[in-house]
């Protein structure tokens, strides 16, 4: 049976992981490569790196990070932030990323999705959608890190990106993001039920129960979290054990490379 994926997300600024990483056991808790290797070792299913600076000068730093991660981590990882052309995508994929994610650039020029899907295959094109449930109940797409409303309906946009070739959707609720109070279940369900591709729920994870809810009530195929893993309060395998106990198919093995090889 296909398991539900638990994904950890790192915000990276000029090659350093930002936002509440507190691992005492790491020599350099800001090093994305060290963290990726640690999370892999601790049983994470997949990783996402979001380059939040995404300035042009920063590009080489990101490429280095992707290369070094691919050297040490043998699970899938996605890279996003400031990718605006299929050449930008190619650079990340050739450096070792398995998938790339685009958000604002896809809204501004939706052809970018089809160009990427055509050139590299749908399987590596993840479209990130930031959405807010408004006072009237409508679900609106935002860009520029959730600051700019687009007037587009989240479900309609999700269907369009799939039609254009997206292989997966990473859906973040601007209402719940950062509150650790649970995912936006109705938004997640509305989008997941409307598309044929996997949907990653993002924004609001505070504990394992939130992730269980996102899967059972929100129909998510994967759940993404940052802070609850980064602060070390919720060890990955603890979360996985709780999810498994709730009847969710979960990958429980997290074998050590040196033991197995």
């Amino acid at each position, binding site marked *: 049976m*296909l398991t539900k994926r638990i994904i950890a997300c790192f915000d990276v600024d000029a090659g350093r992981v930002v936002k509440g990483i507190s691992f005492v056991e790491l020599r350099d808790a800001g090093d994305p490569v060290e963290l990726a290797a640690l999370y892999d070792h601790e049983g994470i299913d997949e990783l996402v790196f979001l380059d939040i600076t995404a300035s042009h000068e920063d590009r080489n730093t990101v490429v280095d990070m992707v290369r070094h991660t691919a050297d040490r981590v043998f699970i899938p990882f996605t890279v996003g932030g400031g990718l605006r052309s299929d050449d930008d995508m190619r650079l990340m994929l050739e*450096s070792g990323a398995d998938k790339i994610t685009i958000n604002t650039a896809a809204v501004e020029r939706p052809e970018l999705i089809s160009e990427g899907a055509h050139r*590299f295959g749908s*399987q590596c094109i993840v479209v990130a959608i930031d959405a807010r449930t408004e006072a009237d109940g409508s679900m609106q797409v935002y860009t520029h890190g959730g600051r700019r409303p687009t007037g587009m309906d989240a479900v309609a946009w999700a269907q369009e990106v799939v039609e254009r070739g997206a292989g997966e959707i990473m859906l973040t609720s601007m209402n719940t993001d950062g509150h650790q109070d649970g995912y936006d279940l109705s938004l997640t369900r509305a989008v997941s039920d409307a598309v044929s591709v996997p949907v990653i729920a993002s924004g609001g994870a505070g504990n394992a129960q939130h992730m269980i809810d996102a899967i059972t009530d929100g129909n998510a195929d994967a759940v993404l979290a940052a802070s609850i893993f980064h602060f070390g309060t919720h060890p990955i395998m603890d979360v996985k054990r709780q999810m498994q106990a709730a009847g969710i*198919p979960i990958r429980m093995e997290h074998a050590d490379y040196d*033991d*197995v090889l």
Partner: protein
Amino acid sequence: MSDPELADLDVIILDYGAGNLRSVVRAVERVGAKPEVASVAAAMDEADVVILPGVGAAADTMHNLRELRLIEPIREYIAADRPFLGVCMGLQALMTVSEEGGEHPCLDVLEGRVVRLPEGRKIPHMGWNRVDQRRRTPLFDGIPDGSHFYFVHSYFCDMAQPEDVVAVADYGTDVTAVVERGKLAATQFHPEKSGAYGLRIYRNFLLEHSGNGVSR
């Protein structure tokens, strides 16, 4: 731990423009081999092991293999029962024909069709799925039955000769996960993205064929 005998193995990874080449190279290096990336048929002459990686669409893959004049050499290499490992598209390309984006004749090393996954579930089939071993083979040494491996695909191999299928994964149907016939093995999942047990697949395959030399 890496095995010293693997360092001397002549491992060729075929480069026909597949996107995940680097991951496969790194995985093979991680288990102790020193692979060479090549896109000319002559590179296979002295090879102990040839690996065909791949992601993307069948039509592009076959087009690229044709342009590089690799189709006949790959068929001859496999027909000589020399060690060959196909990964993901590198499995599907071995089939008779693929229905992905029309009818595309493939290498026809393994009889059967590459068909769309059944409706009713999310496509692509993406993520870690449980792999059930139908037969214990050396490829699974040290890998418990039912371990999870990472899949990403929308089409799967409907094998005309099911006895070649040594492992399956359930996704609305029994998805062909691992095929073995003689010294040919191929996986639908990505061992290079399947953690320690994935790397173990590479190690097992290379170890099985180290010291065998080339029959020439």
